[in-house]
């Protein structure tokens, strides 16, 4: 497929005309869209389809980046705001910086890579279905309530933060009933939420997360062999039905 690039200067632009321009460009056969001077525009890439499309964002996008997206790749050369990858179905997001709260919220498929750290509730309620298995990779560290209510998918925290544990706040995996967390570094037991438990980190697990770490390193130009050789804390559900024991019938 021929590569066709379009650059949009988004300086001072509202998100609706911006998204309209993006959609028009896709209709026009553009395969790479470069957005310059992005400064807080929300909803960029919402609901877009097609796997041959790449959106490059120069500047800080606003919340709900690529929500409901199904296919394209989005590269952000800055930090991102609240909930990038929200309810995403397919596609990839690479964030060259940090991201806010609820990253990859309810994501069903696709991959989100954050070079640095993320806020609260990262990967909350990620789920998987058939061949769709969402992946969230965080380079440095995550705040509280990481992977809460997870119903599927893979959440990796590489713990690259200097003098900063990968997660040192509570509620890790509360209510998790599917999927896996892999965290490099120490995760004290008392940080685990109800329903989450530590599992052995096997060679199979290592193989499973390897391709995603490779993609992380490639995209962000990281060369740290220890990311592949170090031990990870593997956290999964203690039961597929964390709430089953709470109820009785009338």
């Amino acid at each position, binding site marked *: 497929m021929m590569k066709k690039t379009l650059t949009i200067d988004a300086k001072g632009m509202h*998100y*609706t005309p911006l*998204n*309209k321009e993006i*959609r028009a460009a896709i209709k026009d056969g553009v395969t790479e869209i470069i957005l310059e001077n992005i400064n807080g525009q*929300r*909803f960029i890439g*919402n*609901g877009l*389809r097609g796997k041959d499309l790449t959106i490059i964002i120069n500047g800080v996008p606003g*919340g*709900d980046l690529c*929500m*409901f*997206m*199904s296919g394209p790749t989005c590269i952000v050369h800055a930090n991102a705001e*609240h*909930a990038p990858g*929200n*309810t995403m*179905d397919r596609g990839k997001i690479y964030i060259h910086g940090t991201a806010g709260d*609820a990253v990859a*919220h*309810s994501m*069903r498929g696709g991959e989100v890579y954050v070079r640095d750290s993320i806020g609260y*509730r990262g990967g*909350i*309620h990620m*789920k*998987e*279905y*058939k061949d*769709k298995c969402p992946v969230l990779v965080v380079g440095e560290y995550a705040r509280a309530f990481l992977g*809460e*209510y997870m*119903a*599927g998918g893979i959440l990796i925290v590489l713990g690259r933060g200097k003098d900063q544990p990968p997660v040192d706040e509570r509620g890790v995996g509360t*209510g998790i*009933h*599917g999927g896996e967390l892999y965290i490099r570094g120490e995760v004290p037991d008392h940080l685990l939420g109800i329903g989450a438990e530590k599992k052995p980190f096997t060679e199979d697990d290592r193989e499973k997360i390897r391709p995603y770490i490779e993609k992380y390193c490639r995209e962000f130009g990281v060369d740290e062999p220890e990311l592949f050789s170090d031990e990870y804390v593997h956290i999964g559900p203690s039961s*597929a*039905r*964390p*709430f*089953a*024991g*709470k*109820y*009785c*019938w*009338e």
Partner: protein
Amino acid sequence: MPIGSVPPKYKVTIDKDLCMLCERCIENCPYGTFRREGNKIQIFSRACTGCHRCIAMCPRDAISLQEKPIDYRSHPVWSREAREAIYNQAQTGKIVLTGMGNALNVPQIFDRLLLDACQVTNPSIDPLREPMELRTYIGKKPRKLTIDKTPEGDIDLVTKLAPNLKCETPIMIAHMSYGAISLNAQLSLARGAAEEKTFMGTGEGGLHESLYPYQDNMIVQIASGRFGVDIDYLERGAAIEIKIGQGAKPGIGGHLPGEKVDESVSKTRMIPPFSDAISPAPHHDIYSIEDLSQLVRSLKEATEWKKPVFVKIAAVHNVAAIAAGIARSSADAVVIDGFRGGTGTAPRVFRDHVGIPIEAAIAAVDAKLNEQGIRNEVSVIASGGIRDSADVTKAIALGADSVYIGTAALVSLGCRVCGNCYRGLCPWGIATQREDLTARIDPDIMYKNVSNLIHGWTLEISELMGAAGINSIESLRGNRDRLRGYMLDENILSVLDVKTVGADV
């Protein structure tokens, strides 16, 4: 500690002179109440749920059913339900779950509101000979219209109108998901709604492909679990509804147990088969009214501002302020669900005790939106315990644009409100996924029950309006002067903004 069994709820008897041992009762009861023993049908009354399926199917009317054949010592405070919940919890230590709506004998404000009719001084209207306008548009209405005159003398509308749903009746069918109810039940409801040119909600269970033919009459729901939600789903719906809360269980999430997630339900919800579908209590991307606004706009961006977006909340204490916030969030309609609203499963204490009645909520929301001058920004859809066309008419007179009916629509499919939806064995083929049971609903026949119900109610509403001298639903909306309170106290009357019976006009 064993405390023995509680008394059976029902006693089933068969008149042996009438019974012809056809065994239809045995076939029809999935709970195992009946079995054949020689020349006799043996009855195990304790298994009975009072669903009436056997009674409806007995060709000889041979079956009798008695409720509470053995009751407790009567006591004004210690009801049977209160005592039995304690026995249950003393043995389990758990939260008691129930089905259907509020089971307390709470006063129905609707029954204490009376409608008006014309006599002598203003003639009533006969809908047979006069046009009655029941068409209802759900969505934003412009504050004012700007028009342009073309050189040819034509008039062009300059104001850009927001997308609205066009319903030929103010009655829509509430969100009941595939999983909570069967596909055949959903198909009947969808076709019935389409037939009457109105709409029905998908619930949070995705949209099964066999419903695609009715997608133009379906409102797709996005709730905290985001089950079945992708861009195709959003684009298929005629409108999108964000579910924040539900009248039967305000403030808590939902939980479809894994055993109800069969292959087909799993495909529609997009979750693995037999896994629990857990909807968290809040949407974890909405922690404030600003976040809600972000989700509303995100849905609109994703669907290119072509779809109205509704926000459904349970009627709770500060419902009016919340609705005002929603009206400012770019949402097109606010759905308020009162505390008598139904559900497949809810904790007993929530179902019976949390939230406020829909009547008060409609009036409070309508008043607040009017007071702030933003009533045109959203339509108000009311739901939760609407039983007949009189309730619909009163809800509209209190200030609603339209209503959702849930339980009433299921009753049109045979539901007897036995309240055992959570068992997954619904003998009427509604709240079940068991194939032999769901086959009891043939959507090609049963859709007619649904459309008949909506049609009948719509006729009644036009008669009630005509009797009151009103020929357009718009003149009924918020027309509290056409209501009078009967044995309601002053505080309620003031909240409802309704005068008492006998008051001067």
